[in-house]
């Protein structure tokens, strides 16, 4: 399989900040709002360069979503940024009514998503956000995998007309996608071609899935590997075609099994092409404090667990 090289680990939230800074210089319609997390969301550059288009709204997320909706409908392209838990669970009804049901062009920038938020613990580690967002009619859900892809996803979100949920994280993770690669919403990104097992992953789990595919290849198991950076709309065609070739699939994500990419794929396959499947995600529990690396290992979100799931499926053939 193709070699993927880490050009230097960076946090995906910095990719968002870099993308927002580019947008600030290239698109005068782009505005940014934050609920007292400008630094954490890496919005400093945008805020410094465009103070007239940057809105610090204080620790009041519900109002922020409503304001973003009002700005969107008067022609701005607002990015409303906070931690993923406060960007979803805390303001679900606001997103439902003021953004999705009202069809306003709001971009929700959700940082520190998942277990890798780390030491702050379970109150801040949302593992349900993707599920909540993909349930909402009209919402596009993006989960880019590294710094470069988060830059590109931020630009793609601005260019797309409609509500977008853009999920990214806190820790520094390998940066391996090309800096000039465009982000196509709704298009699965094939990372390896193989005939034995399909592996689908997104976010921080894509790098782990690459490591798993390498290990499996060394054992003679060839992997059809995809980065599903768009959870909604799901690239059904690519997933169905791959599973038709391999006959089995592993899905890996930093989320609860409930509501995540795995269930989205399971729903698709159950209806259209039932196949043996394993979901590498967290099962019906909250997280806890720890370093990102400790937590990924403890909750089974790593290359070893992905490879083990793939081996099991392959062994059943």
């Amino acid at each position, binding site marked *: 399989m193709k070699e993927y090289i880490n050009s230097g680990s960076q946090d995906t939230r910095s990719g968002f900040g870099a993308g927002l800074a580019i947008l600030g210089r290239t698109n005068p319609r782009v505005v940014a709002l934050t609920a007292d997390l400008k630094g954490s969301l890496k919005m400093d550059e945008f805020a410094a360069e465009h103070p007239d288009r940057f809105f610090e709204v204080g620790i*009041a997320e*519900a109002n922020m979503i409503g*304001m973003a909706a*009002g*700005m969107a409908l*008067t022609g701005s392209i607002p990015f409303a940024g906070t931690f993923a838990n406060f960007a979803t669970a805390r303001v679900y009804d*606001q997103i439902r009514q003021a953004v999705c049901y*009202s069809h*306003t062009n709001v971009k929700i920038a959700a940082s520190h998503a998942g277990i890798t938020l780390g030491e702050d613990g379970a109150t801040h580690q949302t593992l349900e956000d993707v599920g909540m967002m993909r349930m909402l009619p009209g919402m596009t859900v993006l989960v880019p995998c590294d710094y470069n892809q988060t830059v590109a996803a931020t630009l793609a979100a601005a260019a797309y007309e409609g509500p977008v949920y853009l999920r990214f994280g806190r820790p520094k993770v390998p940066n391996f996608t090309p800096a000039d690669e465009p982000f196509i919403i709704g298009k699965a990104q094939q990372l390896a071609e193989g005939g034995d097992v399909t592996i689908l992953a997104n976010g921080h789990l894509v790098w782990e899935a690459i490591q798993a595919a390498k290990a499996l290849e060394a054992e003679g198991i060839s992997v059809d590997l995809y980065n599903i950076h768009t959870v909604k709309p799901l690239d059904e065609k690519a997933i169905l075609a791959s599973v038709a070739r391999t006959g089995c699939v592993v899905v890996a994500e930093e989320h609860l099994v409930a509501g995540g990419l795995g269930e989205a794929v399971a729903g698709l396959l159950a209806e259209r092409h039932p196949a043996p499947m394993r979901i590498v995600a967290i099962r019906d529990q909250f997280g806890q404090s720890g370093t990102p690396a400790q937590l990924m290992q403890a909750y089974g979100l790593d290359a070893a667990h992905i490879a083990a799931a793939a081996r099991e499926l392959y062994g059943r053939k």
Partner: protein
Amino acid sequence: MEYTPRQIASQVRRDIVRMVTGAASGHPGGSLSSTDIMTWLYFKEMDINPKTWQRDGSHQDMFFLSAGHITPVFYSVLARRGFFPVAELDTFRRFGSRLQGHPCIEKGLPGIHQAAGSLGQGLSTALGAALGKKLTGDSHRVFVLVGDGESEEGQIWEAAIVAAHQKADNLVAITDWNRQQIDGSTEDVAGLGDLEAKWKSFGWEVITADGHDFDSIAEAFAAAREAGGKGRPVMILFHTEMGHGVDFMAGTHKWHGKNPSPEQCEAALAQLEETLGDY
């Protein structure tokens, strides 16, 4: 001929009563308490043109209904002002209608900028639109109507803080202070207390007026215009009466979300002069 606000309001009240009777559901109480304010807004105060109206509100004043359940009054004033045919009021709350139980934009009804119904959200959206107008150099104003019961929602006060901080002086909020909500009087339910002092302390320019006296309404909006552009958002607190204009609906929470029987409808209409012609 030109109708007076009082004549228009009488017709709007007839529309409200007939709509909720026809739909066998809906919210007459708060619709009737805000009828005079809404009539003045749409026929006297706002710079709007139904012919050139767009959802983005460009080059016109914008109105947001935050208390989304009072669609009977909202739809009536929109229709009477020419945003859509008056005959369409007969479809209120019916399957397939553009006149949904609460305002929505999915059905494309002219005059609606934003969905409402889940309470407490309209002030935030109006604030965003007001700041959006400033960004695009549009000097028009943004109006929003909130209920007093609705003001128990925390998001209202989140928006109150930020609107003052952002100096949203092109934003005019209106409270329909009818002192009733579903479960009883606002004082019995949650003790709203002195709204005037509350809004003042949040840094707003506060105007109080009688929401059923057109001279008082006119003065209040003139004062709001005068206060505009001076660095502070404006709140007009209109003292009103729930169910105003229909004796058996007046002053009680019991008609918040209840439709009259056909006989009650007749009794109500007998108290309200038909002026512009029923739909």
